[in-house]
């Protein structure tokens, strides 16, 4: 299992394909980068050239700059890298998120990127791509993670909002600014058409989703409202980084909530001190991870990003050839010792959208 025989291996810049001479989601500067999606720990600035799924381009432009050299590629469209053919396939994670299919001399590997199988009105569903080797994320790879339906969770959020309104309180819901916020706004259309207020970090991203044709409840930037506004009864979406900030003080007597897969665990809910936790994740839960591995028919699975050890051992028990593909980023168990970064505080997949 030396790197030379592997279609993809880890080098100190990221996932590298020697046969095609490109990286997937590199974290250091490389000449050629195939990007799975626009979250900050996957799309980093400074690469020589980028390839990414076309519908996610506005997100990447916002993150990487207007003039970043990015080729937008449609799902399924082949991209030649020498003898290697790459194509992008829907990962169901956020708008424009993709799995990377890599074909070389009859061999097919797939890098999942971040993905989920749950219904999400803001992006096309996950596509099963048959492959020999599947490199999977493992953020929530414990059997305790099983997601409820996103639409039901939005129903809980709506009910909580109404409770807060009845009590004359603003409801401040923290969620990642890219992906999660838009998914909540889209799912809320099943319950209401009342406007939701947005933290400044979300305004452009919500507009990008609207421009892509995603139907969401109406939104108003908080900054459009005067300082003296009475926020009682309003729902405010804000990124987790706004928790405890001065910005938050204007929402007097606010109830706070957090929408994240980590909220499945009571200890996380308690430690973060939010009044409510809503279990909503854009990553695969345990049953989805197993289902996906079965569906794609891989004879070998490499796990990265998260709780790889547990998934690897479980797959091995099922008779699947599995191993960890350790990445120096986004490994929850190796997270820095800084208290704030623990508990998935950045994004579920670490620094996330910020």
């Amino acid at each position, binding site marked *: 299992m030396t790197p030379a025989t592997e279609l993809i291996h880890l080098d100190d810049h990221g996932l590298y394909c020697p046969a095609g001479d490109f990286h997937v989601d590199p974290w250091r500067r490389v000449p050629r980068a195939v990007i799975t999606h626009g979250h900050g720990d996957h799309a980093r600035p400074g690469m020589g050239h980028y390839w990414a799924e076309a519908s996610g381009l506005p997100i990447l432009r916002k993150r990487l700059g207007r003039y970043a050299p990015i080729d937008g590629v449609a799902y399924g469209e082949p991209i030649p890298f020498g003898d290697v053919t790459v194509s992008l396939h829907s990962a169901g994670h956020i708008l424009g998120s993709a799995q990377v299919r890599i074909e070389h001399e009859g061999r097919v590997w797939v890098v999942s990127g971040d993905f989920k199988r749950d219904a999400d009105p803001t992006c096309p569903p996950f596509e099963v791509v048959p492959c020999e080797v599947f490199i999977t994320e493992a953020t929530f790879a414990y059997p305790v993670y099983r997601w409820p339906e996103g639409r039901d969770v939005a129903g809980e959020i709506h009910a909580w909002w109404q409770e807060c309104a009845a009590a004359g309180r603003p409801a401040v819901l923290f969620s990642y600014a890219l992906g999660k916020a838009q998914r909540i706004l889209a799912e809320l259309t099943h319950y209401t058409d009342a406007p939701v207020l947005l933290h400044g970090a979300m305004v452009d991203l919500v507009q990008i989703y609207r421009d892509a044709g995603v139907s969401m409840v109406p939104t108003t930037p908080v900054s459009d409202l005067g300082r003296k506004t009475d926020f009682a009864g309003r729902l405010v979406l804000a990124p987790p980084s706004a928790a405890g900030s001065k910005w938050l003080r204007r929402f007097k007597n606010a109830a706070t909530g957090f929408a994240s897969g980590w909220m499945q665990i*009571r200890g996380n809910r*308690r*430690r973060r001190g939010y009044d409510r936790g809503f279990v909503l994740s854009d990553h695969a839960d345990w049953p989805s991870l197993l289902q996906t591995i079965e569906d794609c028919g891989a004879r070998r699975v490499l796990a990265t990003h998260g709780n790889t050890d547990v998934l690897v051992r479980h797959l091995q028990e099922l008779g699947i050839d599995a191993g960890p593909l350790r990445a120096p980023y986004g490994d929850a168990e190796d997270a*820095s*010792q800084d208290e704030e970064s623990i508990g998935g505080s950045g994004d579920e997949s670490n620094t996330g959208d910020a």
Partner: protein
Amino acid sequence: MRAFARLYERLDATTSTRAKVTAMADYFQHVPAADAGWAVFMLSGKRLKRLIGAAELRSWIAARSDVSPWLFEESYAHVGDLAETAVLLLADDERERRDLELSLAELIEDRLLPLRGSDEATRYAAVCDLWARLPIEQQFVCNKILTGAFRIGVSQRLLVRALEQASGIEDTVLAHRLMGHWEPGAAFYERLIAPDDGEADVSRPYPFFLASPLEEAPERLGHPVDWLGEWKWDGIRAQLVRRAGGCFIWSRGGELMSGRFPEVEAAAEPLPDGTVIDGELLAWRDDTALDFSLLQRRIGRKAPGATMLAKAPVHLMAYDLLEADGVDLREAPLQTRRKRLTGLVAACEDILLSPSVTAADWDGFSALREQARGRGAEGLMLKRLDSTYQVGRRRGDWWKWKVTPHTVDAVLIYAQAGHGRRSNLFTDYTFAVWDGSELVPIAKAYSGLTDAEIAELDRWIRRHTRERFGPVRSVEPTWVFELAFEGIHPSPRHKSGIAVRFPRIQRWRRDLAIDAADNLDDMRRLITD
């Protein structure tokens, strides 16, 4: 069960003591007496004994959820709570309809208690029936009852306050009625909230008067001749109540400690009925205070054995006389109370009188204060000679003037494994104080505990982890530690707004409940430079 699960959720969702009391009071007012009785039992931290072992329960959860034993253990380690792990692993079990409606008393009396002594197959079947048929939102609490680990940050004092709010019965009467052994049930609860028939009057203590830390120069207090100096002893503040032939010892936290210090009760024998003494329990031998750690070993012992009594003999160091001949003396000036106290204590060989410390001027007091450590004291107390005995912490008449460094009683909230020799052992702790009803971190401390204490705390942390991510674990706020530090200054970088210099652990205050920890305002007041 529905109501009790809801109560648990409400208690779990808040750190505000007031909100907790309200939630409990609501519950007690709305459920049948039988449920309320069992709720009091659970909230008191009592457990159903000899029901189901933890190891047994773990193997059942693994079997029922159909995950490998190692995967179950990994999941449990990840979640950090057995009851919750069971809920998460068994949540999608749709083998039965979740239509089982039980009251708390029915669950315990009809379903759980009959399992005592039955064989494993019977018990497994009964528990699986609950797992399959109880509504999901009740599973967690049910599992908590099964595991016996029913900790939810409710102290006895909060429970008593809630019961007082719900029933209108005075807290001391309730505390008295909750003493000793009782069998929960409707009859118990009805008796608990029955009108006061005076049975508790005999034991009832007075609210404690607490000194405030002296932060300014003592010269500001006026002339030393108006003040009584005493050593600030380092033990357990207590009231000894001697009435109607009985002897009752109360802690500052409102806990009745009778029976735990038989030598003190014996020493109080000569005191006449109608006497209440405020003082400090100290481990004491040959005119010397013994180390606090010895006293600590006595705290948890409800009935100490002869060896323990010999190793850590406890005495009462009398400070004040609150009642004599059945008359409340609290409005009398301190010098009068002290004179009468001196006379009373003279008749009791084994009750110590807190010696008065005198000096001609404040410099003299200051010099004496520096000797406090050598006498097993923490500093000086300064009490205005004409002060009445007031309620709670009132600034002005009683000051505690500790030797440097500053100290603070703070609550352990996070722990992290150390490195090197201490790797894989939780030795790096984060402590918090109260800011209103919230615990705010104020310091990390790594040193000060003995190896034995570290090992004990490590075991406790592993069993009481709320959650874990990477190296840090948060724990149920349970233990108070006295931290010492050299200086304190404002720090906008910290959530608390303050930073302390060289914090270290002075001592594990097992005798303090978390609501006795210090608050942020008091710490801010220490900021001088």
